[in-house]
């Protein structure tokens, strides 16, 4: 077997999280209409302002066209063939975990996210979202002692309506884009985080999103608010079962950082990515944006994207506050027929703002992996600085990597640096490692994780180990 074939075998590992939990779910009928939007809102007992928000978004959405500029070439979605709300039947918001359906707990156990008090992860509070609803949030009481709010967005809507109303849709307007408008109309659940003034969140917060049903779209909504001088680190993980149909995931994430606040948002995305012929898999069309409203505030995105049939996301920072900082660290691994078009937007508005972009794309199989990024320096962004580094690694000779950096500067005294490189794992490098007793798989995995090191260094510790394992898993297999 040639080394070429071996590498291809190596990266074509079966998906480990492809099981389906057999649980009775309450689903509404397929399709989207104004009545469906009203139904979702009423099921969740939402206040008037939110229903208005949804209806406005729905009306905007009807007027919008599905974008096609990324040329991702996917089969068109039939928006009337999707179920917009699904909840495990046994779900009424539970007072304690003992009341949660054991099947659900078991599901998260299997995913490596134990929720029960004895087994839960130490030092990480978890909000577990199953299809459309949040089923449990751990460590809530401990966080509440510090005034930190960490709950599902549905809960927040009822318990902290003023905060939700004040911030929802202010970072990503309801008509921002086609998928954001759709999400604003039908979003089901997601996480809400509020860090009060001067509080350093005592533990990492984490949401775990699980799609279970094949015909249900997932439209989660996350809102994180960090008040003056506060800080938080938030982690997000995702998996889905294997279906041969495509499932839509169109999330919206909004982050708001006030004076000298800092938000670190990390994602490990491992949605099912379809089989080797490109059948099935998740369409991941996500709008993630953070606003550094306060001076010296900071928003840092780090992401490890390994799954989805199609990934289309650009976690962005709007740098309004003077001397605010935006960061984007990304590893995107694509294999088989996967397509990823991902990157970031750094919108420099305030003076002295700084941003850093480090993007690592790894393409194997027949996949295509594009970095698309915008760095914009507004007229008032004097002495603003940006540094971008985009590296691509190709495995095999059928994969594609592209880099599309867009740069716009409207003032003469800001600085923008961009570096890009492409490399291929060479036969000679592999042979060198092998000739020192290191097996083929381990050699590939060593080189890939070496390539990603700059990004992994940015991930929270538990996550970095996880990401390394995840990449190794995706690259693991029988040799020869």
């Amino acid at each position, binding site marked *: 077997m040639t080394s070429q074939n071996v590498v291809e075998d190596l990266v074509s590992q079966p998906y480990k999280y492809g099981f389906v939990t057999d649980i009775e779910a309450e689903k509404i009928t397929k399709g989207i209409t104004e009545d469906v939007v009203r139904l979702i809102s009423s099921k969740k007992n939402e206040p008037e302002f939110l229903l208005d928000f949804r209806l406005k978004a729905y009306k905007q959405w009807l007027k919008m066209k599905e974008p096609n500029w990324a040329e991702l070439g996917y089969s068109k979605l039939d928006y009337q063939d999707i179920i917009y709300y699904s909840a495990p039947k046994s779900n009424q918001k539970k007072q304690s975990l003992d009341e949660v359906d054991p099947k659900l707990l078991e599901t998260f156990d299997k995913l490596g996210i134990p929720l029960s008090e004895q087994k839960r992860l130490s030092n990480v509070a978890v909000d577990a979202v199953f299809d459309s609803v949040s089923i449990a949030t751990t460590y809530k009481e401990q966080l509440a002692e510090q005034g930190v709010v960490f709950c599902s967005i549905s809960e927040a809507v009822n318990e902290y309506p003023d905060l939700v109303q004040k911030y929802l849709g202010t970072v990503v307007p309801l008509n921002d884009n086609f998928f954001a408008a759709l999400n604003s109309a039908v979003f089901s659940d997601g996480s809400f985080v509020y860090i009060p003034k001067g509080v350093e969140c005592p533990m990492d917060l984490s949401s775990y999103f699980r799609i279970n049903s094949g015909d249900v779209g997932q439209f989660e909504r996350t809102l994180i608010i960090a008040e003056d001088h506060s800080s938080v680190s938030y982690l997000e993980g995702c998996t889905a079962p294997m279906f041969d149909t495509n499932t839509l995931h169109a999330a919206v994430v909004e982050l708001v950082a006030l004076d000298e606040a800092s938000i670190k948002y990390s994602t490990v995305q491992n949605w099912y990515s379809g089989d080797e012929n490109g059948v099935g898999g998740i369409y991941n069309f996500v709008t993630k944006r953070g606003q550094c409203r306060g001076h010296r505030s900071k928003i840092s995105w780090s992401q490890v994207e390994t799954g989805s049939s199609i990934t289309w996301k650009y976690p962005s920072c709007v740098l309004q506050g003077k001397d605010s900082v935006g960061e984007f660290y990304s590893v995107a691994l694509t294999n088989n027929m996967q397509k990823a078009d991902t990157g970031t937007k750094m919108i420099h508005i305030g003076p002295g703002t700084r941003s850093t972009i480090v993007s690592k794309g790894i393409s194997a199989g027949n996949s295509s992996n594009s970095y698309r990024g915008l760095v914009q320096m507004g007229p008032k962004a004097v002495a603003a600085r940006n540094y971008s580094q985009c590296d691509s690694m190709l495995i095999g000779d059928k994969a594609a990597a592209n880099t599309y950096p867009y740069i716009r500067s409207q003032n003469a005294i800001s600085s923008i640096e961009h570096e890009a490189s492409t490399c291929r794992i060479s*036969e000679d*490098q592999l*042979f060198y490692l092998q*000739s020192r*007793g290191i*097996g*083929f798989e381990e050699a590939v995995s060593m080189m890939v994780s070496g390539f990603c090191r700059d990004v992994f260094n940015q991930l929270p510790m538990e996550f970095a180990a996880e990401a390394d394992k995840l990449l190794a898993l995706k690259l693991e297999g029988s*040799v020869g």
Partner: protein
Amino acid sequence: MINSSSETILEISDLHASVEDQSILKGVNLRINAGEIHAVMGRNGSGKSTLSKVLAGHPSYKVNKGKVVFLGKDLLSLEPEERSRIGVFLGFQYPVEIPGVSNLEFLRVATNSRRKQLGEEELDTFAFEDLVRSRIKLVQMDPAFLERSVNEGFSGGEKKRNEILQMALLEPVLSILDETDSGLDIDALRIVAAGVNELAKPENAILLITHYQRLLSEITPDFVHVMSSGKIVRTGGCELALELERLGYEWLEEELSSTKQS
């Protein structure tokens, strides 16, 4: 020093090999016993580097005929990593750079793969640091190079020292050193040669692949083989190297063709 009853480490019989359909090795025979140092010399393109790559199992080289037995095992049936684990070491002429992979971690994983094979305990980061710091003195390498990526930004001499450091850590049974002298200034050559001499033991063997005699004035071989057109055409003691240095490869070729004619 040479003991005719010593154990045979490597036996190459009638080895034919090609790269990209071009036949390079055309019947190499060579036997190496424990405690011996062999040198293979020859012009560029004579096949001496191909021999080293074939022995280490480089995937671009195809063996068409012949047999290689290493410590009683059929070497050619093994993957490159298996060859390394049982004690074959190739010191590269041009060690590649591997960005992002820490040199220290690379050395540790490599060392442990050999130790595992030998049934020895694998070393954790701390135990390995102690080991590497003792061995690094042998090649007088700055420990700062351990913190860098494998060979990345190393000078030619530093790369070669890193190769010999790997040899010192892996403790191979057979070390094949491919043009280890190329690109070295005289001081670096002496350091590298001293390291190799230190590592030569009665129970292991060394195969030097070299173009010039100058390495052989630092490391004295027991046997010198001359390769030409994919075959070993002459074998002698270390005096053969000196003769070649004085008279050039042409002398040998002329002599060979005249013997053929007569």
